[in-house]
């Protein structure tokens, strides 16, 4: 059961990563990156790495995304790829 | 060698001129003091060398390990004085005094710039030269060899003009290029092959090794071309190029310090690295012989075509250096002795010639052979000396050149190399062919028409003339009193 849960999240992860990297609107891209962060944090929590999950939730999904957004708002929102 | 003596004298002799450097720098404003220091150092150096002479003549070998810190390679910076080194040191240090004197006159006469720098690097060069002469192992030899290359660069490019720049560039690229490209790997290969021994003491370094024909040949050629100060073709062209230097430099470079360091290194390599036995066994010496012979003939032919006096002398030097290498490469007893002697004989002869060329330039600003017509009568001393120098370099009596050439020819005969013997003879004729027209012109041709103002031409200043007279006399004296030289060469060739 757990393994299949794993597999689902893992596949979602790949999907999220690919989308985040391919959306041309950087702001959406950053948001999807945030989603990616939460997914991976979920995965780690499930794997027993609660501390890592916690950190990833605060850092990867939280602060990183905010930093991305701050930068994107200060630069340009569109990307050529 | 059983007769080794530990003595700091070689180090002192070597460092005497280096010690003068700070003094020269301090007195850069007081011209007289500066020159005095230069002389003092020269005399001190000569004195040190002379004090060692009796010991060496007794068959002793002086040794001194200066820095044993190179323990990683197990090769110290060591000094060692034997007969060959002694010959070279005697020649170099005695001629330095003459050259210094001459340089003072020359530089003053032409009001050259940056004289302090000139004397500083002059002193460093001499330090390096004696370092090579007294080097106790291959590494020390290499070290001083490189030091000499670098220290002479500012001298060669002294004029700091475009010509000097190209000349300097050629000079360094040849010397450094070959020494790094050929000599250094050869040295390291020797080091590896001999198991970490580079010392000149005792038997030849590679005598016991199982060197094959091709590795041996490459190693030998690596050394011979690597020490390209010896001017073997095809690595000779730095020498004419370096003629842009002021004449005292040319004199020192091309008669004494630089080129002789080159051949000295080659002799050292042949006798101390390979050893006569090994070379003879492998037969690779013949290759070297033929390259040298080729150089001798070719350079003599080129010299014939040169109009610039200094260039002609330079090509002459190229040929004469190869005499020495040829002699060593013949491996026969008398040929080796002959080449050792030739170091001294040629040095005296050639330095006289260069001094003369410089004196002519100082006196009347002439550089070309074709301009020398009739000058002999106005500058009798100079041209007399020139004649003597020419005789000596050609190998005619009553000059020392005859002796060394005689030994060389004898050696060739001894080795059974008739073809090479012919080379000696042919080249002697060629030598005569490019020198004597000059003497003839100077003395017997009338001065050209336009030389009416030539009446003003007189002998160069005393500081110029005195040294060249001295060296010319030295050349003659070496013919009549070659005893010490012979003794020293005997020490090397036949220690028993």
């Amino acid at each position: 059961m757990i393994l299949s849960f794993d597999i689902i999240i893992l596949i979602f992860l790949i999907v999220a990563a690919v989308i985040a990297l391919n959306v041309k609107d950087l702001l959406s891209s950053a948001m999807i990156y945030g989603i990616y962060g939460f997914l991976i944090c979920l995965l780690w929590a499930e794997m027993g790495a609660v501390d890592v999950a916690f950190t990833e939730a605060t850092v990867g999904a939280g602060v990183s995304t905010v930093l991305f957004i701050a930068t994107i708002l200060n630069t340009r929102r569109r990307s050529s790829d | 060698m059983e007769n080794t003596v530990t003595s700091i004298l070689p180090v002192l002799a070597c460092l005497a001129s280096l010690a003068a450097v700070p003094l020269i720098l301090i007195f850069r404003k007081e011209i007289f003091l500066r020159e005095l220091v230069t002389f003092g150092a020269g005399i001190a150096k000569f004195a040190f060398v002379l004090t060692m002479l009796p010991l060496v003549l007794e068959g002793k070998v002086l040794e001194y390990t200066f820095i044993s810190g190179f323990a990683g390679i197990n090769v110290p910076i060591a000094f060692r004085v034997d007969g060959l080194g002694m010959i070279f040191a005697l020649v170099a240090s005695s001629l330095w005094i003459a050259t210094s004197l001459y340089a003072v006159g020359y530089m003053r006469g032409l009001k050259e710039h940056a004289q302090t720098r000139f004397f500083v690097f002059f002193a460093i060069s001499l330090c390096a030269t004696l370092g090579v002469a007294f080097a106790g192992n291959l590494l020390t030899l290499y070290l001083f060899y490189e030091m000499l290359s670098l220290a002479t660069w500012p001298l060669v490019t002294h004029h700091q003009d475009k010509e000097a720049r190209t000349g300097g560039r050629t000079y360094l690229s040849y010397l450094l290029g070959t020494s790094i490209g050929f000599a250094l790997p050869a040295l390291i290969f020797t080091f590896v092959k001999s198991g970490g021994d580079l010392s000149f003491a005792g038997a030849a370094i590679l005598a016991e090794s199982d060197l094959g024909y091709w590795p041996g040949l490459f190693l030998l050629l690596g050394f011979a071309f690597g020490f390209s100060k010896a001017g073997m073709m095809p690595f000779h062209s730095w020498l004419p190029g370096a003629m842009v230097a002021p004449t005292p430099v040319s004199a020192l470079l091309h008669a004494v310090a630089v080129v002789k360091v080159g051949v000295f290194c080659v002799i050292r390599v042949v006798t101390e690295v390979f050893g006569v036995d090994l070379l003879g066994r492998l037969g690779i010496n013949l290759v070297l012989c033929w390259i040298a012979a080729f150089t001798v003939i070719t350079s003599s032919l080129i010299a014939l075509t040169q109009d610039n006096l200094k260039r002609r002398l330079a090509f002459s030097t190229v040929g004469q250096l190869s005499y020495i290498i040829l002699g060593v490469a013949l491996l026969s007893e008398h040929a080796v002795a002959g080449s050792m002697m030739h170091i001294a004989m040629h040095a005296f002869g050639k330095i006289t010639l260069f001094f003369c060329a410089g004196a002519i330039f100082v006196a009347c600003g002439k550089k070309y052979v074709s301009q020398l017509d009739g000058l002999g009568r106005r500058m009798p001393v100079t041209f007399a000396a020139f004649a003597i120098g020419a005789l000596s370099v050609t190998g005619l009596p009553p000059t020392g050149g005859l002796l060394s050439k005689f030994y060389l020819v004898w050696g060739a005969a001894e080795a059974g190399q008739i073809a090479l013997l012919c080379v000696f003879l042919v080249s002697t004729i060629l030598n005569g062919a490019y020198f004597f027209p000059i003497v003839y012109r100077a003395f017997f041709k009338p001065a050209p028409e336009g030389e009416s103002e030539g009446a003003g031409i007189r002998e160069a200043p005393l500081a110029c003339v005195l040294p060249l007279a001295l060296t010319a006399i030295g050349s003659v004296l070496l013919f009549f009193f070659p005893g010490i030289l012979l003794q020293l060469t005997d020490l090397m060739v036949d220690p028993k």
Partner: protein
Amino acid sequence: MSPKIFASIAVVITGIVLLYGISDFPTFGDPRSPANSGVEGGAPSTSLYYINESYGVTKVPNLVTSVLADYRGYDTMFETVVVLAAGMAIFAILRSTTKDDETVAGPARKSSIDGDHNRIIVGMTCRLAVPVVQIFALYVVAHGHYSPGGGFQGGVMLGASFILIALAGNLDDALGRFSEKSYMALASLGIIIYAGFGVVPQVLGKNFLDFGVLQKILLTDGPEMARSHSMLGVEIGVALTVMSIMFAIFANLSSRGTLKGGL
């Protein structure tokens, strides 16, 4: 070569190398794998030591905390230094105090959210949330021994609470609470606290970061509790630095180094 082709080649090669390594991995989740219990026939791995022994030595049930803050406390100290270094690097890159640089701040950006809306919905939510976030962050720092979390997570959350203020209102509000002076000082102070817990044992003659010896100073019963309390102290240091730098990074990034205006 276009970057795409180059990238593909690099990726394929790296991937093959990595998968080659994976071919030999123990099964996922195997408790007997070398990482989890040591090489076969060798000594048990360190992780077993931590699970079996560390509580007795440190009295901290959260193994991650005890390993992080004590056994590998040296790592953690440098992790904090990395944060500090990143902060300093960002200041060095962005921070500009020159007045004439009008272009740096950019043209006044029109807020994407209308003023009233912003004030009522976002501002109010933020005002309600920030104290809770902060107290939770402090709880996380203080309870790292028993539950997941610790100095780093708590520090990030504290920093995030200030970021929240900056996001909801503007940067000046946040900087009013947590000025540049104070965050620079706290950033350094955090590591000084951390390293101080390391240096004091040195003064007492033990090795760096040997918390056990601190019982003399902390007046605890036995070195175990000294370790436990020192870990808390160390976590507080981490939290201070991380909080300061996280907020500082945001402040500088969002204002392009001018520390004025905001997003």
